[in-house]
C-alpha cells in the first residue's frame, strides 16, 4: 500500500480523548490521494463515528478491568453505556445457547478468552456460569489463562467454585464415597505442583544458564543449550552401553596378565599400556558366553567357557558378550537416530514461517526486545543492536538495486575468488598433510608413546588455527549481509572438519583395518579406539588452551596495545562446530572404545564451566544479530547429517565388511561382526526354547527384506499425505487473506458512509 503520507503533518499526538481529537482536525495536504482517505486513520471523523470506531470489537481487546474502564473520561463514559445497553442483547441469547448446548461450553469459554473479552458486570456472570460447567482443575486452567487481573480472578473463582471448596470436606452434599476421591485429588494436585517446581529446578545448569542469557542474549544461550543436549545424548548412550555391555563384562572379567598394572600419566593421554587392557577398549572384551547357573545350595557361580553346572539344573539365560556388544551398539545408534530425527523435525517446525514477505520487520520490531536484560549497559547495547539492524535492513531495501560500477564489481569478485581459493587450498593442504603424516607413522611403525600423540596434536592444531583464518577471510570479504557471512564461515569450517575426519577414517578403515599385520598390530580395533581417544583428549586440551590463553591474551592485547575497550566476542558458530566434531569422534569411536561416551561426558562438563568462566571474564555480548531458532535448527541438522549419518555409515561399513582381528576382542574368529548375530540366533534356538521368539523377531526383522520394504512404503505414503495437506493449507490461507482484505474494505466503506450520513444530518438539522 503506497501511502503518500506526509508524516510531518499527520503523525498524531497521543490523545485518549476522542472529543478533542475531532477538534484537532489538521489541515490536510492536497497531495493526499484517495487511498489515504479510505484508511481508518485519524481524520476529521465526527464524534459519533469515533465512538463507534473505538467500540468496535476488534479494538476493545484488553480493556478488561474496572480500573481501565473508569479511566476513560467522564465525557466518554457514555461510551460504555451503549455497550452495556446492547450487551444484554448479545449476551442473553448467547448464554441461553451455552446452557442448552453442553458441547459448546468449551468453545464458548475459548471464544471469551481468545476474542476480545472485556470484563463488565454481565460478562462476569456469564463467565462464572460457563466455568461451572468444567471440573475444578480444568476450570482453574482456563481461568489462569485469561488476561484478567488477579483480584478479578479470585472473585470469579470464589463465585464459580464455592460448591467444591476444598477447605470443607465435611459438606452436607458430598456423600462419603466422594469424600475420598476429593481428598485424593487434592493431595494429587499438591504433589503435582510441588513435583513440577522441583523438576524444573532439577534441570541441569538451569540457573547458570538463566544468568548467562540475561547478560549475553539468546545466541550464547543456544550454544549452552546445544552443549546440554549433547551431554544428555552421551549420557543415554553411556547408560545403554553400560547396562548391557560394560557391567556384565566388568563382573566377569576375562583372564589377563597383571604385569601391566601400573598407570603413568602419559598412558592416560595415549591410551596405551594399562588402559589398553581395560574395559576402555575393544580388546578387553571376551568372546565368551557368560552362563550363570545356580547350584543346589543356591550359590551362584559364574564360569567362563566351560560349564561346570549340572545338566539337570536349568541355566539362566546365557549372556553372550559378542552378541551383546553387537546388538547394544546397533540399538543405541538406532535410538539416537530416532531421537535426532524427532528433535530435528520439531526444530524445523518451530523455525518454519509461513511468510508473506521475506522481510520480517514487523516481527523484529514487536519481538526483538529482550525483557530479561536488566543492566543499563546491556540495555543500551541492545538498543544499539536493534537500531543497527533496523537501519541496515531499511537501507538494504532502499538501496537494494544500487548499481555498482563495473570496476567495483570486478574488485569484489576478485576478492571473493581469492578468499575462496585460499580457504579451499588450506583445507586441501591440511587434509593432505594429515594423510602424509598418517602414512609416515604407518610406514615407520611409530609406536613410541610420545610420537603417537603427534598425529592427534597436528589434527587439533589444524582445527584450532584454520577457522581463525576463515574468519579473517570472511571479514576481509565484506559480505553484504551478516547472515551470508555466517553461513560461509560455517560452510568452510564444516568442509575442513569433514575432510579431516574423512582422511582419518580412510586411514583407519582403509589402511589399518585391512592390513593390520603390516603395522605389527595384534589388535587393530583397540588401536583405532586409542587413536580416537587421543584425538578426543587432544581436542579438549587444545580447546582449554585456546579458551584460556587465546581469549585472555587477545583481551589483554586489545586493551593494552590497541587501546580499545572492546572485548572479543564469543564466536558461537565456531564453538558449536567444535562440539559437533567432538561428538562425531565419540560416535565413530564407540564401537572400538565403549567407554568413550563417559570421556565425552566428563569433557563436556568441564567445557561448560570453562566456557562460562571465559565468557564472563573475557567476552562481551555480540553485536551481530543472531536468529536463535534458525541457528539451532541448522546445528541440529548438522549434528544429524553429516555428523551422525557419517558415523553410522562408517560403523555399518566396519560391522558389515571388515574382518575383525583374530587375536582379541569379542569377535575374534569371525569373518565379520554381524556373524555374531547369526551365531547368537542359533545358540538361542538350541539353548532356550522359551526365548525363541526373540530369534523369530530377529529373523523376521533383519533377515527378511519384506519388512523393510513395508516400512519404507508406509513412510513414503505418510510423507506424501503431509505434503499434500500443506499445499492445500497454503491455498486456503491465500483465499482467507483475500477475504480479510475484502472485509477491511467493507469496514472502511461502512464507516465513511456513517460519516457521510452524520454530516448530512448535521448540515440539515
Amino acid at each position: 500500500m503506497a501511502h503518500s503520507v506526509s508524516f510531518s503533518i499527520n503523525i498524531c499526538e497521543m490523545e485518549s480523548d476522542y472529543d478533542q481529537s475531532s477538534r484537532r482536525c489538521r489541515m490536510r495536504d492536497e497531495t493526499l490521494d484517495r487511498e489515504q482517505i479510505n484508511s481508518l486513520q485519524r481524520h476529521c471523523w465526527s464524534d459519533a463515528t469515533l465512538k463507534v470506531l473505538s467500540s468496535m470489537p476488534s479494538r476493545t481487546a484488553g480493556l478488561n478491568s474496572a480500573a481501565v474502564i473508569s479511566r476513560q473520561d467522564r465525557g466518554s463514559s457514555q461510551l460504555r453505556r451503549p455497550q452495556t445497553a446492547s450487551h444484554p442483547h448479545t449476551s442473553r441469547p448467547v448464554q441461553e445457547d451455552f446452557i442448552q448446548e453442553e458441547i459448546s461450553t468449551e468453545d464458548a469459554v475459548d471464544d471469551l478468552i481468545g476474542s476480545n473479552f472485556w470484563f463488565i458486570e454481565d460478562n462476569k456472570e456469564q463467565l462464572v456460569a460457563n466455568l461451572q460447567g468444567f471440573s475444578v482443575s480444568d476450570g482453574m486452567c482456563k481461568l489462569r489463562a485469561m488476561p484478567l487481573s488477579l483480584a478479578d480472578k479470585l472473585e470469579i473463582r470464589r463465585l464459580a467454585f464455592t460448591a467444591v471448596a476444598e477447605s470443607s470436606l465435611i459438606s452436607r452434599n458430598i456423600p462419603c464415597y466422594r469424600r475420598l476421591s476429593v481428598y485424593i485429588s487434592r493431595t494429587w494436585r499438591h504433589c503435582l505442583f510441588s513435583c513440577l517446581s522441583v523438576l524444573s529446578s532439577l534441570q541441569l545448569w538451569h540457573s547458570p544458564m538463566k544468568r548467562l542469557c540475561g547478560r549475553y542474549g539468546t545466541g550464547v544461550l543456544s550454544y549452552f543449550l546445544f552443549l546440554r543436549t549433547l551431554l544428555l545424548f552421551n549420557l543415554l548412550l553411556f547408560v545403554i552401553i553400560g547396562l548391557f555391555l560394560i557391567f556384565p563384562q566388568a563382573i566377569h572379567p576375562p583372564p589377563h596378565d597383571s604385569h601391566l598394572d601400573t598407570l603413568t600419566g602419559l598412558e592416560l593421554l595415549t591410551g596405551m599400556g594399562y588402559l589398553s587392557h581395560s574395559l576402555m577398549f575393544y580388546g578387553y572384551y571376551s568372546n565368551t558366553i557368560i552362563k550363570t547357573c545356580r547350584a543346589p545350595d543356591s550359590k551362584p557361580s559364574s564360569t567362563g567357557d566351560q560349564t561346570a553346572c549340572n545338566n539337570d539344573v536349568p541355566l539362566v539365560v546365557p549372556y553372550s558378550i559378542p552378541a551383546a556388544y553387537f546388538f547394544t551398539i546397533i540399538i543405541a545408534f538406532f535410538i539416537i537416530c530416532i531421537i535426532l530425527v524427532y528433535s530435528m523435525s520439531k526444530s524445523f517446525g518451530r523455525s518454519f514461517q509461513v511468510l508473506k514477505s521475506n522481510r520480517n520487520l514487523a516481527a523484529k520490531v514487536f519481538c526483538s526486545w529482550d525483557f530479561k536484560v536488566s543492566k543499563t549497559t546491556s540495555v543500551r547495547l541492545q538498543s544499539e543492536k536493534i537500531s543497527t539492524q533496523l537501519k541496515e535492513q531499511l537501507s538494504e531495501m532502499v538501496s537494494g538495486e544500487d548499481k555498482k560500477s563495473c570496476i567495483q564489481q570486478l574488485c569484489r569478485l576478485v576478492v571473493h575468488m581469492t578468499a575462496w581459493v585460499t580457504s579451499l587450498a588450506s583445507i586441501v593442504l591440511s587434509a593432505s598433510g594429515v594423510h602424509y603424516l598418517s602414512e609416515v607413522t604407518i610406514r615407520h611403525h611409530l609406536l613410541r608413546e610420545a610420537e603417537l600423540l603427534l598425529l592427534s596434536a597436528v589434527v587439533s592444531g589444524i582445527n584450532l588455527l584454520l577457522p581463525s583464518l576463515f574468519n579473517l577471510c570472511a571479514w576481509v570479504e565484506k559480505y553484504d549481509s551478516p547472515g551470508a557471512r555466517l553461513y560461509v564461515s560455517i560452510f568452510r569450517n564444516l568442509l575442513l572438519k569433514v575432510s579431516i575426519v574423512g582422511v582419518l577414517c580412510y586411514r583407519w578403515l582403509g589402511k589399518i583395518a585391512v592390513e593390520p599385520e603390516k603395522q605389527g598390530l595384534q589388535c587393530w580395533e583397540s588401536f583405532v579406539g586409542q587413536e580416537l581417544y587421543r584425538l578426543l583428549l587432544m581436542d579438549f586440551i587444545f580447546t582449554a588452551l585456546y579458551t584460556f590463553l587465546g581469549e585472555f591474551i587477545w583481551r589483554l592485547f586489545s586493551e593494552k596495545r590497541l587501546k580499545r575497550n572492546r572485548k572479543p566476542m564469543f564466536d558461537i558458530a565456531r564453538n558449536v562446530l567444535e562440539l559437533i566434531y567432538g561428538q562425531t569422534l565419540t560416535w565413530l569411536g564407540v564401537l572400538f572404545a565403549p567407554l568413550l561416551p563417559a570421556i565425552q561426558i566428563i569433557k563436556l562438563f568441564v567445557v561448560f564451566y570453562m566456557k562460562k568462566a571465559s565468557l564472563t571474564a573475557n567476552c562481551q555480548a555480540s553485536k551481530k544479530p543472531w536468529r536463535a531458532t534458525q541457528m539451532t535448527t541448522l546445528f541440529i541438522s548438522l549434528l544429524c547429517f553429516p555428523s551422525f549419518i557419517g558415523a553410522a555409515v562408517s560403523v555399518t561399513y566396519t560391522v558389515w565388511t571388515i574382518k575383525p582381528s583374530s587375536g582379541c576382542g569379542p569377535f575374534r574368529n569371525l569373518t565379520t561382526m554381524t556373524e555374531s548375530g547369526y551365531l547368537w540366533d542359533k545358540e538361542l534356538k538350541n539353548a532356550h526354547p522359551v526365548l525363541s521368539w526373540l530369534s523369530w523377531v530377529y529373523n523376521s526383522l533383519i533377515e527378511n527384506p519384506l519388512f523393510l520394504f513395508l516400512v519404507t512404503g508406509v513412510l513414503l505414503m505418510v510423507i506424501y499425505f503431509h505434503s499434500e495437506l500443506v499445499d492445500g493449507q497454503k491455498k486456503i490461507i491465500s483465499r482467507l487473506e483475500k477475504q480479510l482484505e475484502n472485509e477491511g474494505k467493507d469496514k472502511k466503506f461502512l464507516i465513511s458512509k456513517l460519516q457521510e450520513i452524520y454530516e448530512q444530518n448535521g448540515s440539515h438539522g
Partner: protein
Amino acid sequence: MGTTASQLGKDLLSEYQELTFLTKQEILLAHKRFSELLSKDERNLPNTRVSMERILTLPELKSNPFRERICHVFSTSDQKNGSLSFEDFLDLLSAFSDSATLEIKSHYAFRIFDFDDDGTLDCGDLEKLVNCLTGETDDTRLTTDEMRQLINNILEESDIDKDGTVNLSEFQHVISRSPDFVSSFKIVL
C-alpha cells in the same frame, strides 16, 4: 483481597499458585521483594499500593524502556497513577514468567505497546514503540524518513484488513510467526 502482612497465608498462597503461572518459590520471592519496597508502617497494612516511582527502583525494571507502560498496564488503581498492589505485582510477574502461555504474553505485550490505550497500534503507537526500542541517543534514533519507511513496511506486513492500524489479532498473528518471542518476553526476579 491481597495482603501485605509479613506472612502470606497458606490458603492465599495456594490460590495464587493456582491462578497465576508462578511457582510457590517465585510467589514467596515476589512477596519478599514487594515488602522491601514498602516502609515499615505500610507493611502491616493490607492492600497497600506501591507508587510507580518505587516500583521503578526494582533493578529488573529500572532500565527497561517500557517500564512506565508496564506499570500502567498492570495497575488496577483508580487514579490511573501506575501504582501496583501486591496482586498487580503478581499479575506482572505471572505474565512475564516462564510458563505463561503465548496468548497471555501477546495480550499483555499488545497492551504495553498500545501507548494511547485505544485498542489498536496506529502510526503514533508504532513510532513511540520504535523510539523506545532504539534508545535515547541521537545516533541510534531513526530519522524521519527511516521511521516513515519502517512504519509503512510494518503496516504492509502485518495489517491484514488494511485499516491502517494493527489490532490484537493481527499482532498475535505476527507474534506467532516469531518463535523467539516467548523467550524474550520474560522478567525473572
